[in-house]
């Protein structure tokens, strides 16, 4: 016991130092979110303990977020959009990757190259034709308009493909020998072995949705569809910035995904390695 503590002590020290670097800028945001607006800059410089400790604690910013700015609705929207994107994106991405790994067909490499191409182009370049297209489909100002264009995601296909390549092929072969259909192989054999990568892919999709900004802004015009990043940008105005509300919203925007991640972590230690199927 003591020996293991001693050997892991340096690891803890490194972890604590890294955590400090990562969290320091956010400490400032956290403290500022509890300050009245006109106090934020007062203690910013020179840096003293007051920079990181509010002299007067107030919930003003958080209150205003939920009462005046309707942040609750915004959060619900973002979740709805995020979860739809994750469910749809996982399904589409893993299925396509499955086909790329287990089926042979002509033009596979070329097709896969096209898939890679889809995430090498910035959104800004495709925004104008994409807007025209979604407009023609009649999806402007609907949830479909925000969600559907992002469902098929080249990066997710790529991620799953890299992982499927790692799986021992004998598993699939024996399942096929037993007469399992491809759908069964996918749903019952392959996917259950892929929990860590599924968690990674979910995070990837969720974070992409969580961060998406320009597209939801262009694709919708009603307040009902407002998502978190659009709301966040409202705090910087022509005349001054609502720092305290901006930081409060930023803190909320951080806490939520992190809280979601914590329970998902146990799947990280449930890889194939631990099931003993990989030798």
């Amino acid at each position, binding site marked *: 016991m003591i020996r293991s503590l001693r050997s892991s002590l340096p690891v803890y020290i490194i972890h604590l130092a*890294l955590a400090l670097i990562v969290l320091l800028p956010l400490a400032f945001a956290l403290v500022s979110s509890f300050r009245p607006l006109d106090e934020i800059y007062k203690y910013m*410089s020179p840096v003293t303990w007051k920079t990181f400790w509010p002299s007067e604690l107030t919930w003003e910013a958080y209150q205003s977020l939920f009462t005046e700015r309707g942040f609750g609705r915004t959060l619900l929207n973002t979740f709805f959009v995020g979860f739809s994107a994750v469910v749809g994106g996982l399904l589409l991405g893993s*299925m396509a990757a499955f086909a790329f790994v287990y089926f042979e067909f002509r033009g596979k490499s070329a*097709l896969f190259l096209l*898939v890679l191409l889809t995430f090498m182009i910035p959104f800004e370049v495709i925004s104008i034709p994409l807007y025209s297209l979604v407009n023609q489909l009649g999806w402007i100002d609907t949830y479909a308009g925000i969600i559907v264009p992002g469902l098929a995601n080249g990066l997710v296909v790529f991620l799953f493909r890299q992982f499927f390549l790692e799986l021992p092929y004998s598993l699939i072969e024996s399942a096929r020998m037993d007469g399992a259909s491809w*759908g069964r192989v996918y749903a019952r054999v392959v996917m259950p072995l892929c929990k*860590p990568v599924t968690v990674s892919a979910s995070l990837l999709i969720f974070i992409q949705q969580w961060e998406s900004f320009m597209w939801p802004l262009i694709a919708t015009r009603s307040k009902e569809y407002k998502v978190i990043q659009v709301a966040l940008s409202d705090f910087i105005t022509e005349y001054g910035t609502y720092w305290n509300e901006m930081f409060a919203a930023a803190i909320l925007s951080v806490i939520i*995904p992190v809280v979601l991640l914590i329970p998902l972590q146990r799947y990280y230690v449930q890889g194939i390695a631990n099931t003993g199927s990989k030798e």
Partner: protein
Amino acid sequence: MRSKKMLGPLLLFLLPALTGLFLFKLYPIGNGILQSLYTTSFLTGGQSFVGFQNYITLFQDPVFWNSLKVTLLFNIIINPLQVVLAFLLALLLNARIKRIAWFRSIHFVPVAISVPTACMLWNIMLSPEQGVVNSILAAFGLPEQPFLGSSTQALGSIIAIASWKGVGYWALFLLAGLQEVPASLMEASSLDGAGRWRQLIHIIYPMMKRPLTFIVVSITTANFLLFSPMYILTKGGPENSTNVLMLESFNSAFLYSDLGRSSAIVVILLMLTLTAVAVQFKWLKASH
């Protein structure tokens, strides 16, 4: 396995994603690439075909060459840096110690913060007017630095900010991959006295090749396209030292009313990215 029955499942698996990709990604991309061969005529309001004129104009433009230089410099530094840091962080986060879940979550925090907010925070941290970082430097008796206000430090500052935000994210993907390295293998080698370094090179690295390929390619494409920190923090300055190609493309489309130029830059950027990715695929495949 040798009947037409195969076609059904194949289409079933592939079609949904492909339809989406073609409709919402590849079609607009093709549209964008074609745009680089056109120019807008302000008199008629229409588009006229100009062949490769947009590219020729670009190649004669010193602004383009400067941006190309900045883009290459930025990527040559940031990509290897982020890959190595992400790998090291993943190894650290894989340590079997108590409360490791907490540390993993901490590194996820910068991921969840939006780029504009992250930029605002770091702008305050790095402020030349007694910002937090400068105060720390001063406390150690070091001279204060201009950071984003200096043409020699701005690009480096942006690399630091982008890595602060990105490394934890990429490390999580590697962490998922590390779960697949059997614990018995790692423990056995550390017990029989194999140096940690050799363990890394000979046991972990080969098993991590596919997850590594994924993050190397993702990091590279993400960084070639990265421009919002420059847009928010420096607008490409000071003295154009952070004016990456993507920022120039964005400006061409939305400030300079020049969609043709914007698309031509993106096509060149795409060529660069594809070249880099092809090299990486080769390299990660060849070195066994």
